[in-house]
């Protein structure tokens, strides 16, 4: 029985197209990821990496296709997913302490009216220890360094005790020590059969960090186990030659105000 459950794919993306202002920024993405893998999403700027994880989490509307997590629609498994947004996406001048932020990870489970209890604080403290931030519990977030901000976000994600984690560039602007600490942590998470999906920039570390890799450039170039997919040919396909025709058609769709898909 246990085995059967873990056979369910962590993530299934079926024929997904995502458009901004009608212009498709991701075309017909199809992929399936098994559980318990550390997955990297790579591709050039504007390839739609962040868009893909946002669409998967239901933060952006899909123009076509569907997404399933653990074989269920996203809204049925919200409590099992976790998200680490880009560090710059929030205002770090916000009047809050590190603990306040990490406790947010418990909000999804708490529900309306309930305040974080002792048990939640224990979980939060535990997560802070895991990322090496235990001595900063009451530090104001405006006084954190970039690496510490990232660790705080990571602790918040851990506090969710989710099964699948989406992380948008967790290594951006962090020092080498933090990067190493983070990757070790992610490893230990996948060892516990958690699935971790990371938007990543640095190609050199890809083979070393990730079990699976998703190569993206407005369309899916390739995905699969790193050793078989992370090839020169696929890299050229991802970073080389722009598909000008695709861009032109996308612009045309926006200019003409074309519907995304024909109404059936």
């Amino acid at each position, binding site marked *: 029985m246990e085995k059967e459950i873990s056979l369910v794919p962590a993530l299934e993306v079926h024929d997904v197209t995502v458009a901004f202002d009608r212009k498709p920024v991701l075309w017909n993405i199809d992929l399936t990821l098994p559980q318990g893998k550390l997955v990297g999403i790579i591709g050039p700027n504007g390839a739609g990496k962040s868009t893909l994880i*946002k669409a998967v*989490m*239901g*933060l952006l509307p899909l123009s076509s296709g569907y997404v399933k997590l653990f074989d269920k629609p996203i*809204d049925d498994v*919200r*409590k099992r*997913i*976790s*998200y680490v*947004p880009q560090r710059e*996406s*929030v*205002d770090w001048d*916000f*009047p*809050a*302490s590190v603990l*306040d*932020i990490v406790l*947010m990870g418990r*909000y*999804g489970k*708490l529900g*309306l*009216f*309930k*305040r*974080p209890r002792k048990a939640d604080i224990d979980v939060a403290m535990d997560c802070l220890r895991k990322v090496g931030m235990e001595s900063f519990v009451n530090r*104001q977030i*405006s*006084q954190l360094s970039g690496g510490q901000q990232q660790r705080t976000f990571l602790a*918040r994600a851990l506090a*969710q005790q989710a099964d699948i984690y*989406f992380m948008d560039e967790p290594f951006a602007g962090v020092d080498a020590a933090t990067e190493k600490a983070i990757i070790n942590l992610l490893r230990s998470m996948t060892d516990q059969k958690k699935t971790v999906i990371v938007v990543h920039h640095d190609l050199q570390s890809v083979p070393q960090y990730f079990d699976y890799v998703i190569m993206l450039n407005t369309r899916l170039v390739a995905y699969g186990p790193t050793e078989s997919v992370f090839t020169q040919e696929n890299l050229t396909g991802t970073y080389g030659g722009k598909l000008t025709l695709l861009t032109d058609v996308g612009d045309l769709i926006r200019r003409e105000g074309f519907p995304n898909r024909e109404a059936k």
Partner: protein
Amino acid sequence: MNDIYIIITASLVATTCGLLGCFLILRKMAMVGDAISHAVLPGIVLAFLFSGSRDSVTMLLGAGLIGILTTFLIEFFHKKARLQTDASIGVTFTWLFAVGVVLISLFAGKVDLDQDCVLYGEIAYVPLDIIILDNGTNIGPKAIYVMGTIFLLILVFIIAFYKELFLTTFDPAFANAIGISTALWHYLLMSAVSATTVASFESVGAILVVALLIAPAATAYLITDNLKWMMVIAAISGIISSITGYYLAVWLDGSIAGAIATCAGILFGLTLVFSPTHGLVFKKINALEVSTKPSN
């Protein structure tokens, strides 16, 4: 006794606005708050016309709806007509406010409001409108009860949903990802702002509401790094502004609302310079310390 009544009313308005203002400025929506406080005017006038009185629940509801309509219109012009946000705010609230003022002039006989009162209220008249019980006891001005109720409602709202308001303000994307609707809390908060604006309107007018929404919260933001304390400090600085403002107005024989706004501004100015955490003087000293450190 009268001055106590006025100060209490002003303090209630200031506290309520201060609490909500913290969320407004942290959400970078200070100007939307400004827009709402102007735009509720036609709602107030219409509710006046239909219900014939100024303290009915209809008025709160009607104007509250207009407040939401304002938020909606701003978004509509921005998203559907693709007008840039700042212009969309500017066009929406000026238009609604203009409609409100014209309505007042058109129904001058039927609506007990005048244009000046719209801008700076008539808090001086608060003690004139008192509630007298059947047995003849005077239990104080009505405005205090109205504002007191609103204050309690807002306080309960913020305490009960602190978690949600905090999260959707700090990190909307994360909130949505874990299934907490940012849109819902956005509209609830805007309704709270509308209700407060409406309730405070006749005592302090459109502009002072804005001053009390923004200035105390901004003052608190320069003092503390803790949201809960920020709200407390905002409330306190609102009360201080109310008290000093009242006496300033008495001394100069001018508008109380204007004087309270002035004092809120002065308080902000003082904090800007002398705040122990984010004040300019402190920053200067800090910078000096840092630059002298290597020589130690």
